């Protein structure tokens, strides 16, 4: 850009305004600024040229140069706003992408579905005041059977196929095996109440099929106190069902049999799929089996260190895998410990 160095301000103004109009980008504007408005620009040089003028013209000239500078400054700012706005709009338009293109890869982990359900169950019981109590996988015949009112040759042993390590040691067939340990450890020789849940892996010597596995997770609940009633069992399980499955849940007790509880019941909840109207999952009954439960048998209380004349308790035990299968519509339990990553990675 040529910068007139004569002192014809009108001509200077015309030239400058042309140059400003011609500046069509931030870079061009920047160049205009340097040429005209910066400390080394034309208006500064004009001010320095004042000395070449006759004295009587100097004041007016100075005033006019300042006016010219101010006008150019104002116009420059306006022009800059326009160009900044336009350039931002252009940039935004240019940057637009197809949002349906694939994402960048990002690592994602996942919980095993059994963990998800187990956590939910334990979380509800912990909120209801139960503490988590864990006991060993390998148990003695006593803890798994004998002390739970199932002496050798007891008919109830037919209900469970057991993996034995030898005549005395076995893989626990249910988390009930921890009941006696919990009572003895926490009950202070039968003087303190106990409120625990016992989660864990259990084992049964069954054929591996789409519906049965040799290992599965259970959660056992045990509450021992001086005035525990079966109605408390019903109330606690109703509360559990409502916290886990919704505020309208109902529970139903059915007669059953476990050697370590008396009375023994199966506890059903309203079918979570059909809401109780009857469907394939609940075999048209409107009810789903939730768990087995009952009042702790006096023999078991006594084995746990409590005087059954003074203390009572209730216990319940539920499987986790069945809920996992129902909830996630998995049709083959073998996926759970077979660990097919194509299934497990769906939980990411």
């Amino acid at each position, binding site marked *: 850009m040529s910068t007139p160095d004569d002192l014809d301000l009108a001509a200077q103004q015309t030239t400058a305004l042309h140059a400003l109009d011609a500046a069509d980008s931030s870079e061009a504007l920047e160049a205009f600024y340097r040429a005209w408005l910066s400390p080394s620009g034309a208006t500064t040089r004009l001010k320095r040229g004042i000395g070449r003028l006759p004295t009587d013209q100097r004041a007016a000239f100075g005033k006019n140069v300042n006016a010219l500078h101010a006008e150019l400054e104002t116009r420059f700012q306006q022009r800059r706003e326009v160009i900044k706005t336009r350039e931002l709009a252009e940039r935004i338009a240019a940057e637009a992408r197809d949002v349906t293109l694939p994402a960048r890869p990002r690592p994602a982990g996942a919980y095993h579905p059994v963990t998800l359900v187990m956590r939910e169950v334990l979380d509800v019981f912990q909120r209801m005041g139960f*503490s988590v109590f864990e006991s060993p996988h390998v148990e003695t015949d006593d803890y798994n059977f004998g002390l739970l009112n199932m002496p050798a040759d007891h008919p109830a042993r037919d209900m469970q196929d057991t*993996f034995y*390590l030898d005549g005395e040691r076995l893989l626990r067939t249910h988390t009930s095996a921890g009941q006696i340990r919990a009572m003895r450890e926490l009950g202070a020789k039968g003087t303190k109440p106990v409120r625990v849940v016992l989660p864990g892996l259990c084992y049964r010597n069954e054929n591996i099929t789409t519906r049965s596995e040799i290992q599965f997770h259970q959660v056992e609940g045990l509450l021992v106190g001086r*005035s525990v*009633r079966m109605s408390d069992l019903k*109330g606690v399980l109703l509360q559990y069902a409502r916290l886990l499955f919704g505020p309208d849940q109902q529970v139903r007790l059915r007669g059953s049999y476990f050697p370590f509880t008396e*009375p023994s019941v199966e506890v059903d909840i309203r079918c979570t799929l059909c809401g109780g109207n009857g469907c394939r999952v609940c075999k048209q009954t409107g009810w789903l089996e939730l768990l087995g439960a009952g009042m702790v048998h006096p023999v078991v209380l006594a084995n746990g260190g409590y005087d059954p004349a003074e203390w009572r308790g209730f216990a319940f035990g539920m499987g986790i895998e069945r809920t996992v299968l129902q909830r996630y519509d998995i049709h083959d339990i073998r996926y759970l410990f077979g660990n097919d990553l*194509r299934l497990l990675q769906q939980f990411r």
Partner: protein
Amino acid sequence: MRVSLSWLRSLVPVSLDTPALVELLTRAGLEVDAIHTVGALDPLALVGRVVSRKALPSATHFVIDAGPSHPSVSVVSKAPNAERFDVGATVAIALPGATIIDGHGDDFALVTVASAKVYGVQSDGVLCSERELGVGDDHTGLIALATEAPNGTALSAVLPIPDGAEADEVLEVAILPNFARCLSMVGVAREVAALTGAQGHYDVALDELDVVSGELDAQVEATDACRRFSTARVEGVRAVASPRWMQRRLALAGVAVIDHLVDVTNYCMIELGQPMHGYDLARLGASTVGVRRAREGEAARLLNRADGEPAVALPAGTLIITAGDVPVGVAGVIGGSDTAMRADTTSVLLESACFDWPSVRRSSAALKVHTDASTRFARGVDPTLSVLAIRRAVRLWREWSSPDLKVTATGDWQRAPIVPGVVKFTQQGIASVLGLEATKAELTEALARVGITVREAAGGALEAVVPPGREDVTRPCDLAEEFARVTGFDRIPETMPGEALPFHTPSRRYTLREGLRDALVRGGLQELLTYSLIAPESEALLGAEPDETPRLKVLNPINVNRTSLRRTLLAGLMETLRENHRHTPDAQVFEIGVVFLPELPSPYGRGLPAEKLRVSFALTGRIERASMHGGADRGADLFDGVAVVEHLLRALRLRGVEIVAEEAAPYQPGLCAALRKGEKHYGRFGVVHPEACARFDMEGRRVVAGELDLDALLDEAGTTFKTLAPPRFPSLPIDVSMFVGRAVSAGQVVATALGAGGALLKGVEVIDEFSGAQVPEGMRSLAIRLELNAGDRSLTAADAQAVRVLVTTALTAALAAQVRE
């Protein structure tokens, strides 16, 4: 227990429909697993109409419209009256899967309809006669239906089913161990009566035995295992076919029909619950039988084997039946084949006993023989039944096959008088255990329904008199259960415990373990849960432990892959990668679980193995992936393993644990590290040795893995820590380059620098490593960056120089580093 509803109705009036009856039984503890239907009651027996008809050489081919689901069923019928069924005529069709009654011959048999080719034509059903549907006797041709009901209507909705019809429903009832009394029709009928309040008439006509002469002197030696032993000698019997009604009831109960002599003993067992055995007196070689325990080396030929097969060894101590001291059967389980009743039998010794359940259970388990009899004895048989059952059998024989039979002798040995049990209880005790109100009158009425009589005892207490068949009722809690069952568990309200109970107390181990699980998932790893049981051969593929390492093996494994309790989680993870890598080559997995180490003591004592919590991980395939947005594929390497381990240590707030080089299987030498803190060793990680990968069928695949002792890590883990205030002045970085000997680890360099740098030195990071021509022989070049901060002031060049001198001097002195300026 298969319960025929028509048989049940003959014992107790049932006004409920089948679904309501099923519900009632299920809620009282008799869960109905399945409902089997027969004949016209089968839901697959439908109304249909002829769409087309074509004569075949000796049959007729129909196309039947059996409703919207089956609009065009091809059926071939050989019925003589088939040609009378024109297009539009109404027929009864049983579709494949339906159970109908065999129409041929006099014997009762069930047939399951199946698709077949008949004379080369597809036939997908049966057009039925009255008899096949179980609604009448006629089997001369297809039943003519006078109904306007639409096609596909269930026959049961339109066809009158007369009293005594053979069409039936059979409930398959699961009998829990304390419901042994319901392993009989009378037992189930009593239960139905108790639950509905109906009046049963199950006192099946029982004649007194008119014994012609003599008493049988049973030789009961094993008095510890036998409670009652009743016998009768019956002469003048004939083995003919049983009446059709009896065949039918046995068939529906799932019992094979043989001949009247055998059928009656089975019938009495199903009806009353008393197993019986009849010996052919001519083959018995003795006038009576006895009970004793088998001696070493004894054997018997048993009825479950074909004739001519060798005798089965009887384990010493097995409770056996003997004739003249020769074993002729296993007590309560199965009879011997040499002395069994046959077609030519005319004189029978009937044995009807009450054996104690432990003996029968042991025999049954030892011989692996489970029979209808052993099922009942294994759960306990009512000791009052034995003589009743003999009378019932004699009467049934006399009524059909053997009108002239004579009972020539009987015997009835009892260990002790059979008396009712007495249970003391209080009304308040029952009510408070259930949490409801119950008056004495309500209790008395409810218990009376299950045969338990309540009477006043001294001091205001109550006594329940329990019949001998109910030996499951011995305590007040048993009475509470009976009361709740009979009156309905619905009556129990929902309450919350009304006393102070311990609050939830978090367990440190549980909280930390679950926190670690969260951290690993957050870190991008997939959680696995593998089997606790594994094959030692699979663990041996790791090559990490010698073969003779003690292992816990199960005595009765389910298959060869699940024989021993695992000593490591790694084998399970490697197996998982092996099963997945062909379809899922990129995997980053972990498991938290226990391993079983029998050589270490367990805190539980009593010979139990130590159960150690471990965390294990394995990475394979790409850990970074190229995409259309750029980036490059990168396979997992050692330093991804280091990243997992450091992530894990951070999550557990563990300080001062060092990663040090170690060499151990299954890792590749030079790419293996251990975690240590002083003397403590927390496990190892590294790149799995290529040969170990190959042994797991993953040749050429790189797996980075590790397994750490989580119990030990959790012991050291912190739940909280102290933060440092963010510095108010900027940090100053100083880079130091050096050559160090190859034996010197980066970890040593960092530790030496940190130890020497003084208070201003806040951190040391390795920023570069290389080897090459410029590096002196036997050395490598390392560059570290020192982070300096004074906290309360800006740093000066003099500060930096001072720290640099301290660090370089120490590196030179301690590690023989050659620091490059």
